[in-house]
């Protein structure tokens, strides 16, 4: 039996002659030999083919954009900075900012109501979300704009008691406020769920620690819980704001001067330039969304403090470091980068 094992072992130890030659030179030389060898990356034909196809498609798109004169880039360029278009874009920004503020402020209140111990508050919050999520924004806008039909005057005072201030509804709810109510109130229904999700994502121990330290209730929320909830709220919230930015184009039904309405007025007047003007509006929406995305990056970074051990560098920092490395590699003599590099 032991003889059998011995035989087996001898077979295992049989080594190809090439390696055997290296073994004779000793293991150290093998390691040195391997270290000297050149590394050749694996061939990835599939990846190359896919890249080639993508490159071709990209080239085709660019080519058609440049050569098809029906895009009328000269018209696009003219109207891109047209005063009424710029004004329309600013109006869109204003609508987005105000309705996002209304939406998230009210949404936070609704979220807290939903999480409260009072069944009535919970029910009201739930019903609000139910109604405002169910009715299309388009209908809501028109309803708010026609509020004066239902209530010709609005008053401020004690419910079922004396009233102190009266307003003419038509004067109070102009197109801007009808748009803000329509967009903001329905946004609140969505924001409420986002904020509630964020609050639920904060560890129970954080609530307990804040309570055991005797922090005032308000402070527990504003200083401890909500900042931590923001980490999971921000990405979805930005999604919502971008949706709001584009969704605000629906306000054109009120003939309100936001970006899309302005553009449609212009092409309505000069008939043949529909597409270039739609391109103008698209470019503006694209630019504004890009801006929001950049802001999002930094806001997310801000709320990631403490959640990550070390924050990754920002693209700018990365660029600067990359440049510094390149500068050093270029070996500019006497350059501060080179001197520092040498010192290390």
């Amino acid at each position, binding site marked *: 039996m032991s003889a059998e094992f011995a035989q087996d072992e001898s077979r295992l130890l049989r080594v190809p002659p090439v390696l055997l030659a290296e073994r004779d030179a000793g293991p150290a030389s093998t390691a040195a030999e391997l270290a000297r060898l050149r590394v050749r990356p694996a061939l990835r034909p599939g990846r190359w083919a896919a890249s080639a196809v993508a490159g071709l498609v990209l080239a085709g798109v660019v080519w058609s954009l440049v050569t098809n004169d029906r895009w009328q880039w000269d018209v696009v360029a003219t109207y891109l900075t047209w005063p009424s278009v710029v004004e329309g874009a600013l109006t869109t920004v204003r609508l987005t900012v105000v309705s996002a503020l209304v939406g998230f402020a009210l949404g936070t209140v609704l979220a807290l109501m939903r999480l409260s111990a009072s069944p009535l508050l919970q029910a009201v919050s739930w019903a609000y979300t139910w109604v405002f999520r169910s009715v299309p924004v388009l209908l809501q806008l028109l309803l708010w704009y026609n509020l004066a039909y239902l209530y010709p005057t609005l008053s401020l005072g004690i419910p079922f008691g004396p009233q102190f201030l009266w307003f003419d509804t038509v004067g109070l709810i102009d197109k801007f406020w009808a748009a803000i109510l329509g967009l903001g109130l329905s946004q609140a229904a969505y924001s409420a769920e986002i904020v509630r999700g964020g609050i639920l994502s904060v560890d129970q121990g954080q609530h307990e*620690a804040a309570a*055991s330290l005797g922090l005032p*209730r308000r402070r527990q929320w504003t200083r401890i819980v909500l900042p931590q909830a923001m980490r999971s709220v921000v990405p979805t919230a930005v999604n919502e704001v971008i949706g709001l930015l584009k969704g605000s184009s629906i306000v054109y039904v009120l003939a309100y001067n936001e970006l899309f309405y302005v553009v449609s007025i212009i092409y309505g007047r000069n008939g043949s330039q529909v597409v270039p003007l739609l391109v103008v509006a698209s470019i503006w929406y694209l630019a504004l969304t890009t801006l929001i995305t950049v802001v999002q990056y930094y806001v997310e970074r801000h709320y990631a403090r403490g959640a990550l051990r070390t924050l990754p560098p920002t693209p700018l920092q990365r660029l600067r470091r990359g440049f510094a490395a390149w500068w050093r590699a270029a070996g500019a003599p006497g350059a501060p980068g080179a001197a520092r590099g040498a010192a290390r």
Partner: protein
Amino acid sequence: MSKGLIEVHGVHKTFGTVEALRGVDLTIRPGEVVAIVGPSGSGKSTLLRAVNHLEKVDRGFVAVDGELVGYARRGDVLRELPEKEVLRQRTRIGFVFQNFNLFPHLTVLENVTEAPVAALGRAPLEAEAEARELLDRVGLADKAGVRPRQLSGGQQQRVAIARALALRPSVLLFDEPTSALDPELVGEVLRVIKDLAGTGTTLVVVTHEIAFAREVADTVVFMDRGVVVEQGPPARVLEAPENPRTRAFLEKVL
């Protein structure tokens, strides 16, 4: 009269169908160091959480320095206190959690100064100076500017102790302060707690560290199935337990 008297009378607490506390009576003298030991599920943590009203009791009462925790007596009824009052009471009862529960988005220094400034209305600069002193006391003076996740578990728990001390509580409660730590980090936390013994603050420590209880505690309380089974000086409870349940538990853990 020195502060830090804790009285627990006939406390019952049920979670769903589980009776966590079934009539607990306990008196802890000012400045006393008490270790509460017992098998898991015996109600130790629930009792500790009832003392600062993180857990509402179903029956019985808890009083700290003669003041009922969470309730006010009006004739024959106990009225639940408004939250504001409960929060005020808690500033005199420090609590250290098993999982530290430091605020991860705040720096170590901000963690320690938060409560003195926001709950007691102390001047920020004054609170900061005191916080630095406390951090020095737990050996973390150089970590004031970092955030909790950059620290080891033992360091985090020491910050949590400094945070609790910043309110200058008369009572300090520790809920298994070393259970979430790697073995080699347990010692540094226990040393800090040991240093607090004899400073006049009442310390109540729920712990599985029997050696620590023997060395530091004035009184060891053994709990099982929601009641206090046995209590007394460590020499008696840990070396010559009278109750068979205490004996069985100690045989298992020692």
